[in-house]
């Protein structure tokens, strides 16, 4: 029997979501202002930059490889002792502080800087309508609700295999695993269906997963969708988007007080220097926001 006291123990000043150039810059600038900073990144940090063969327009590095620049960035955050958590953020909710939900648990922060990059989230027809009514993104949250039942796990990465194992072992579920990627291991203890789902439909008891070239769909009690990327609009409730980009002003403030955004997720040009600059502006905004919070608290006490 364990107890959790996280919310009473540790509240970060700034939570940076994303470990690309903008996120690293935001974290460095926040830390330089003596704030307690954490970066959440589920993938390798700076993965996109690392892949660049040659970068010729980043000041101070006339002819560097992506590997060299990313190493320099990573050394910088190591040097500053910035907390880097290799966890996927699944949702952010504003309470007295921001609650950052990850697949491993949660954390609390006074401000949030979204530096999540620009990717597309694949959504299936019927997914939004059935959310909480047979479709779930979180085994930890909803596994118990389907204990002993039949579930489908649809995943775009190997992470789904662990979740499928957990559903089988911890909750006694019959699992059909549907990989949206090239599955390497063949010794899985659950059944595997290599076919791309088309849509989800409600059934009297459960959900039907429809497939191309299959007359009858797969009927299960629940569907778990394990995605590597969640669009910012779904990540943060009420976040204003402008098309695929997060709507920000010149101070990198979003429409939600205390939430800032920087880098590719705010729009082009998709360059390192632009991302680094926006990361800095966002961090300075977050620092200013925290000062305002602190002075409000002082006024209340007086």
């Amino acid at each position, binding site marked *: 029997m364990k107890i959790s006291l996280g919310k009473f123990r540790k509240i970060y000043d700034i939570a940076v979501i994303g470990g690309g150039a903008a996120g690293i810059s935001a974290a460095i600038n926040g830390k330089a202002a003596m704030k307690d900073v954490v970066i959440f990144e589920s993938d390798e940090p700076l993965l996109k930059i690392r892949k660049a063969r040659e970068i010729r327009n980043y000041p101070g590095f006339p002819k560097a490889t992506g590997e060299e620049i990313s190493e320099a960035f990573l050394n910088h955050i190591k040097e500053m002792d910035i907390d880097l958590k290799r966890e996927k953020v699944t949702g952010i*909710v504003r309470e007295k502080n921001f609650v950052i939900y990850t697949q491993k648990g949660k954390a609390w922060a006074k401000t949030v800087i979204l530096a999540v990059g620009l990717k597309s989230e694949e959504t299936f027809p019927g997914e939004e309508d059935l959310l909480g009514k047979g479709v779930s993104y979180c085994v930890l949250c909803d596994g*118990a609700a389907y204990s002993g039942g039949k579930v489908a796990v649809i995943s775009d990465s190997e992470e789904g295999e662990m979740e499928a194992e957990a559903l089988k072992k911890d909750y006694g579920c019959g699992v059909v695993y549907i990989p949206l990627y090239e599955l390497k291991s063949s010794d899985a203890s659950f059944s595997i269906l290599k076919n791309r789902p088309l849509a989800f439909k409600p059934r009297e008891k459960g959900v039907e997963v429809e497939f191309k070239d299959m007359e009858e769909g797969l009927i299960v009690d629940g569907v778990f969708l394990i995605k590597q990327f969640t669009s910012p609009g779904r990540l943060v409730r009420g976040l204003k988007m402008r098309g695929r980009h997060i709507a920000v002003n010149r101070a990198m403030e979003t429409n939600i007080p205390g939430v800032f955004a920087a880098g590719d997720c705010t729009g082009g040009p998709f360059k390192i220097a632009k991302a680094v600059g926006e990361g800095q502006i966002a961090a300075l905004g977050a620092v200013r926001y925290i000062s305002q919070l602190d002075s409000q608290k002082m006024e209340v006490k007086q």
Partner: protein
Amino acid sequence: MTVIPEEDAELLREIFDEKMRSDVEVLLFIKREDSSSDEAEKLLKELSALSPKISLQVYDFDKDREAVERYGISRVPAVTIIGEKDYGIRYYGVPFEQEFETLIEWLISVSRGDVDLSPETLKRLEELEEDKKLTVLVTYACPQCPEVAQRVIEFAVASDNISVDIIDIFEFPEVKKDFPVLVSTPKIFAGNKTLTGWRGSDEGALLELIK
């Protein structure tokens, strides 16, 4: 071996000392030779020893029928916290892991008799005329559940018209059969209306639910 490590116990002593105002009584309903009841009793005994403002009363579900009926207890283990009055909040299960934070916030809210809701929400709750019974389904491991449970507890503390059953469906899987839609947690039921996921911690969404 203790359930609450000394480091956490020290933090809890500080929190209770700083935030609690009046005395509260924690009522625990158990059955003998029931492992969940044993766990709940051990946890709450340790917790109540951390502040002179917290007392613990343990009732046997089979023997103490008068108390069981007075508090409308339907299953065990069950917890309720009484402050200046009974706020109509019942927790069914063992409030540990993630739900331990719910228990701590609940103790503080009842002890203070006030909550941190917006003035608009408090006004709307004051205007509530009908009694509303909410049921919140959680699991102790669900990271999103405590924020929802805590918000609903705040509503119940703020309004005499709201009562709440919080049920851990991991402890009581059979309750899933009692509800008309597929279950995922956190989920709030108010009559035939439901609220799923994080939206349950949103004051506006909760007000809509009880309208």
